[in-house]
């Protein structure tokens, strides 16, 4: 008899795991709360480190889902999961009731709500946007302008917004924001060659393959400046410009400058659904609010509840490459379990 797996979350982790499992002759239910698959990546324009269009990723993942073993349930939210006779019974808001052998949680992350950093004035100052907003603007293909329609002359990119910040409630590093800032800064410079860009960082964590190289390119080729210091506060000027204050820690002096636009590099935080799901299933969370693995080295994809597995950013912030790798290993783990 064919085995059946429910994958909750149709972002790139869920999609990749679904396609791998389906090729191993396992029936997959891919449950996505929204109309579209692709998750956050679907809303992104281009990707680091090679400026590849994000749509290429989602398209190729979607193509791999064209398979008889996969059933996609869009606009579907899981309302309950119960264990019955070694199987899981999954109930949804569409009044469906599925019996599956294993469950893969791939519900991903939420972007940090930048409103919470009140002193940065997101939602109040016209020219404060988030990295996700910027990505939407870039995707729209329009010229980047300030709220008053002018071409910005100076832009500040603020790293670690909602990451590594006890005051924002999150201690963890979101891993992808540093490199995203570099990527976005380069993209802005490509579109607006006369704009000055300052990245305000706490530490630069260019850990991935090719990251350091584009960081260097950002400095050398695009003249992007990096200031080590956290933004303390932003204030709006009489002409809509933004006055920002930080310490230039490497000069050991406070720094003030007027910029035309601020881009807040919002981090990855646990999705709201993660804690609900964890509660419902009795899965452990780690201190950062993401799903925990009991063994830090061997425990990836495995939860404390047998039969329930994880893939992607439900367990910690990840890049796309890491997410894909994690989804593949999750497929392997789940396969071992149901075999």
């Amino acid at each position, binding site marked *: 008899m064919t085995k059946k797996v429910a994958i909750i979350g149709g972002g790139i982790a869920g999609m990749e795991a679904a396609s791998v499992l389906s090729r191993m002759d396992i029936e997959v239910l891919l449950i996505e709360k929204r109309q579209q698959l692709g998750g956050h990546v679907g809303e992104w324009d281009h990707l680091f480190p090679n400026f590849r269009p994000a749509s290429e990723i989602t398209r190729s993942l979607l193509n791999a889902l064209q398979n008889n073993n996969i059933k996609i349930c869009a606009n579907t939210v899981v309302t309950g999961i119960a264990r019955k006779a070694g199987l899981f019974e999954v109930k949804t808001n569409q009044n469906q009731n599925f019996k599956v052998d294993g469950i893969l949680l791939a519900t991903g992350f939420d972007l940090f709500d930048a409103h919470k950093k009140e002193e940065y004035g997101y939602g109040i100052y016209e020219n404060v946007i988030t990295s996700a907003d910027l990505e939407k603007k870039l995707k729209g293909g329009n010229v980047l302008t300030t709220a008053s329609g002018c071409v910005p002359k100076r832009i500040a990119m603020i790293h670690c917004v909602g990451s590594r910040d006890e005051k924002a409630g999150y201690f963890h590093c979101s891993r992808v924001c540093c490199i995203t800032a570099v990527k976005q800064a380069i993209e802005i410079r490509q579109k607006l060659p006369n704009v000055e860009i300052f990245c305000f960082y706490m530490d630069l964590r260019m850990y991935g393959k090719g990251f350091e190289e584009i960081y260097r390119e950002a*400095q*050398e080729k695009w003249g992007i400046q990096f200031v080590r210091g956290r933004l303390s506060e932003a204030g709006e000027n009489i002409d809509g410009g933004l006055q920002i204050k930080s310490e230039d820690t*490497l*000069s*050991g002096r*406070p*720094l*003030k400058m*007027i910029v035309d636009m601020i881009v807040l590099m919002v981090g990855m935080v646990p999705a709201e659904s993660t804690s609900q799901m964890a509660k419902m299933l009795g899965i452990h969370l780690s201190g950062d609010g993401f799903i925990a693995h009991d063994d830090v080295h061997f425990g990836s994809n495995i939860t404390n509840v047998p039969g329930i597995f994880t893939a992607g950013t439900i367990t910690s912030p990840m890049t796309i490459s890491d997410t894909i790798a994690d989804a593949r290993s999750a497929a392997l783990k789940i396969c071992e379990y149901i075999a």
Partner: protein
Amino acid sequence: MKDFGFTITKDRQIDYDQHDHRLLQFVLENEPSFQACISCGGCTATCSAGNLIDFNIRKLNMLLRRGETEGLEKEINKCMLCGKCMLVCPRGINTRNVILKIKEAIQKFR
């Protein structure tokens, strides 16, 4: 003007918009490798002059980047141009030329 026995303290803040960035522009145009500085401080650590006095070439370069050029001339004149900094720079910055260009720029924009 009245003497109150105290004066208004000068701001320590770097006011980026109030500064003259011509020096920096000149140095960057003539020695673009300066862009790549990550302020690691290797140059200062190996500096022959820096081992004798409070001469911090990393910080000077940093202040130049922020347009804080006051006092730059007095400081940069302590450099002996020996080139040790160039040998240790992890980003391959042509530090000696940076210094020469700073000196030149100081003359130019005096």
